């Protein structure tokens, strides 16, 4: 773990227009982001938003989106929240683990881990 200088925060402030939280409901670290459609007027979007839309044609968890954008998590969330408001992406709400992991997924995970 490292602490970095404040320099990049000035640029990040611009990206989010100073917002610290996304619009709409909170966005979980491993919520799955899926691109629903590309914008009619792509020029309305900042490059980071376009990158998200390209990346999330394949459903992608939020943590991966942040890592690929090389942007802090909360900045990424603000960008995702804006895209969600415009109806360009869907962000699923993770279900409780007990409901999402059935016997089949459990076996898949065990098998996958053992074959690494």
């Amino acid at each position, binding site marked *: 773990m490292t602490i*970095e200088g404040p320099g990049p925060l000035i640029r990040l402030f611009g990206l989010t227009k100073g917002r610290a939280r996304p619009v709409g409901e909170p966005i979980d*670290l491993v919520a*799955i982001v899926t691109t629903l459609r590309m914008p009619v007027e792509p020029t309305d979007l900042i490059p980071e938003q376009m990158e998200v839309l390209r990346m999330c044609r394949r459903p992608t968890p939020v943590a991966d989106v942040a*890592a690929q954008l090389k942007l802090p998590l909360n900045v990424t969330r603000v960008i995702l929240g804006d895209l969600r408001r415009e109806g360009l992406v869907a962000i699923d709400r993770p279900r*409780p*683990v007990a409901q999402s992991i059935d016997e089949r*997924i*459990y076996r898949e*995970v*065990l098998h996958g881990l053992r074959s690494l």
Partner: protein
Amino acid sequence: MDFAASEASATTAPPALAIKILIAGGFGVGKTTLVGTISEIRPLHTEEFLSDRSIGIDDTSGVEGKVTTTVALDFGRITIREGLWLYLFGTPGQDRFWFMWDELAVGALGAVVLADTRRLQDCFPAVDYFEQRGIPFVVGVNCFDGARRYEVSKIRKALGIAPEIPIILCDVRQRESVKEVLTTLVTYAVKGVPVDPHPVG
């Protein structure tokens, strides 16, 4: 806006799922090594408000009004198949980053608490944290070169944890060993806990 309903009806394929596993333990116990042994490590940055306490620690001279700091933590991804992943998040080992634990812990399948027998007390806070929140965890005792070997029963007694909680002697540098730790956790979390103790939302 809620897309869950339309998503479910639009496709019959199983929805993509990212399973979150936490790797906890004291500073320098081998959390990052474990993640790197089994998966490709990627950096994740998060900017957070500084508490009054940490403002005193960080040097903020010359940065007027600086109230946020950037914290980097590592996470690893294991792809089981397209649309099914395990995410390993190393929890911050320093006390001043406790605020991040809650975010990491929400909806987690479970946790690996790494312990070093030379500094067993370093993992007490992690054990307390997961016990209090009912998050399933296993203890991985990282057997460093030269570290004195202890019997599992003695470690269990020292940690004061329930008899059903698995304790695994491991070497976080060895992939086979890390696989055993993770498969033990997944089985314990899925089979050993009949109802979800930490629902999302």
